[in-house]
């Protein structure tokens, strides 16, 4: 048995935890650079605010009540996500963090002590008491069915946010799947749903009853696995330790368009720095550095320009200095003046677990002395929370930094921003 626990409108709920004055009021959160709506609480949904609406459009609309708008406060969300995770781990033996607000739990055998749905309610109360956030819990014999149960628990309020699909009640499972549109199944995207519809498969039940061989022939083995999972045969197991990364990408859209080489160089330098730090976190060395830049494809009256350049390194490295140098050399090859760049990024590929490699007799590049010690000191300072050191190439006052004009305080991670209570 698997359970899927997810936090109800996570970002918007996080913003409300330390704001008693916002109880029951509409809250929405915006994407990076305050672009568009990416999270809404129940009150905001009731006002008909749709997902993905651009902020500038919303700003001009009149609503009967004031809408509370927040920029993405990732510091707060990460902290509360960890707290939710800790609460769930206290009650379940094996937990996989699937995303910032979703966790898969292995709940095999729990029904010997407690009914599955009672366990779900217990989990819900435990998280609510410790974090103030409400979770929904869906349970089923496979991950896909757990996800379907979680979908249904949201769709029909009478379940109270907890629903278990068990093997001994196949009619309930059947009933639920007959009501679930195929596009809502875990792992079925828009394109596949459309193709399924042309074959007359519009509900989850119809897909569950399809012949797996037929599905594999017309689609792929992944969808065949979904069919089996819908029939209660677990094919996807719990991944407690995520597999080592094969690629690290650090990219961001700019708060304001970048037009000068100097600003772009600073941005690339910062992304390279961050990517190298992530690389060391994974204990890997990379042999390939890629840089990309692009203008906005939606800008009117502007030619679109986007390009990629990459460099193969002679020696595998995890030294920030090597990554920055390679990234800047790549940038120089693709930089063009007179564009208004909207996005850029640095990508690291081709990982090896050690920095050891066969040196070439005539190589001019020699491994840097004491590189790992220097990087250790660098990361040590930056992770200590006491201060930051960075490479000068990144500049000191970047004007292209992410725009977060409606940012709430980091209530749980900064002493200066902890919530206040009045003494009366």
């Amino acid at each position, binding site marked *: 048995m698997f359970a899927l626990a997810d936090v109800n409108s996570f970002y918007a709920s996080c913003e409300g935890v330390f704001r008693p004055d916002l*109880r029951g009021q509409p809250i929405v959160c915006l994407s990076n650079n305050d672009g568009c709506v990416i999270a809404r609480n129940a009150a905001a949904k009731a006002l008909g605010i749709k997902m993905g609406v651009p902020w500038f459009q919303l700003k001009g609309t009149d609503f009967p009540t004031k809408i509370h708008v927040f920029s993405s406060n990732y510091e707060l969300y990460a902290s509360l996500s960890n*707290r939710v995770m*800790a609460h769930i781990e206290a009650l379940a033996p094996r937990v996989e963090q699937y995303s910032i607000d979703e966790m898969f739990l292995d709940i095999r055998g729990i029904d010997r002590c407690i009914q599955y749905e009672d366990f779900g309610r217990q989990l819900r109360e435990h998280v609510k008491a410790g974090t*103030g956030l409400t979770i929904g819990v869906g349970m089923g014999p496979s991950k896909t069915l757990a996800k379907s149960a979680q979908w249904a628990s949201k769709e029909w309020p009478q379940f109270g946010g907890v629903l278990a699909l068990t093997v001994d009640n196949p009619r309930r499972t059947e009933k639920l799947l007959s009501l679930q549109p195929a596009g809502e199944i875990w792992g079925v995207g828009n394109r596949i749903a459309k193709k399924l519809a042309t074959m007359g498969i519009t509900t989850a039940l119809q897909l569950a009853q399809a012949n797996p061989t037929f599905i594999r022939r017309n689609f792929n083995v992944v969808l065949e696995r979904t069919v089996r999972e819908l029939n209660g045969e677990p094919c996807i197991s719990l991944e407690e330790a995520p597999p080592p990364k094969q690629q690290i990408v650090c990219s961001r859209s700019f708060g304001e368009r970048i037009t000068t080489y100097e600003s772009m160089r600073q941005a690339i330098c910062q992304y390279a720095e961050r990517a190298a730090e992530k690389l060391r976190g994974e204990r890997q060395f990379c042999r390939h550095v890629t840089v990309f830049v692009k203008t906005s494809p939606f800008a009117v009256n502007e030619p679109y320009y986007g390009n990629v350049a990459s460099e193969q390194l002679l020696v595998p490295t995890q030294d920030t200095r090597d990554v920055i140098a390679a990234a800047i050399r790549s940038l120089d090859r693709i930089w063009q003046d007179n564009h208004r760049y909207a996005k850029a990024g640095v990508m690291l590929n081709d990982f090896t677990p050690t920095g050891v490699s066969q040196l070439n007799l005539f190589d001019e590049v020699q491994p840097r002395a004491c590189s790992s010690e220097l990087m250790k000191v660098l990361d040590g300072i930056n992770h200590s929370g006491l201060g930051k050191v960075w490479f000068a190439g990144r500049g000191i006052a970047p004007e292209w930094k992410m725009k977060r004009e409606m940012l709430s305080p980091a209530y*749980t991670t900064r*002493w200066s921003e902890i919530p206040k*209570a009045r*003494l009366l």
Partner: protein
Amino acid sequence: MTSIQFIKASQEPEILQLPLFADTVPCGFPSPAQDYVEAELDLNDYCILRPSSTYFVRAIGNSMTDIGLHSGDLLIVDKAERPQHGDIVIAEIEGEFTVKRLLLTPRPGLQAMNPAYPTLYPDPEQLQIFGVVTAFIHKTRNGD
């Protein structure tokens, strides 16, 4: 008679290998305490029972002299703790966090610990408790 024997230099001298210890040896007496080192006392262990449900809140306003709580003190709040009669709690009043003593008998109320303020008796349905204050820290020197 004395005979003189000539000793020739050996063609293939035997090599005597003596190890050289590159490690330094600390002089002096080894610490007799080194097998008995314990972890230092951690204030977190003392103040915080459940880290994942504990939040820090800053107290602002008139002092609650009865319990020695002053403006600027750091409150350690456990959200998962079940509020009991007499607990110091963070209650939500008119959209604000406030520090009060919780009364459950004879009827639910929020008592101010400053005689200048009255005890509130909010509608029990509306009474929202953010968490229980399990400890507070008062710095005796101002600054930082």
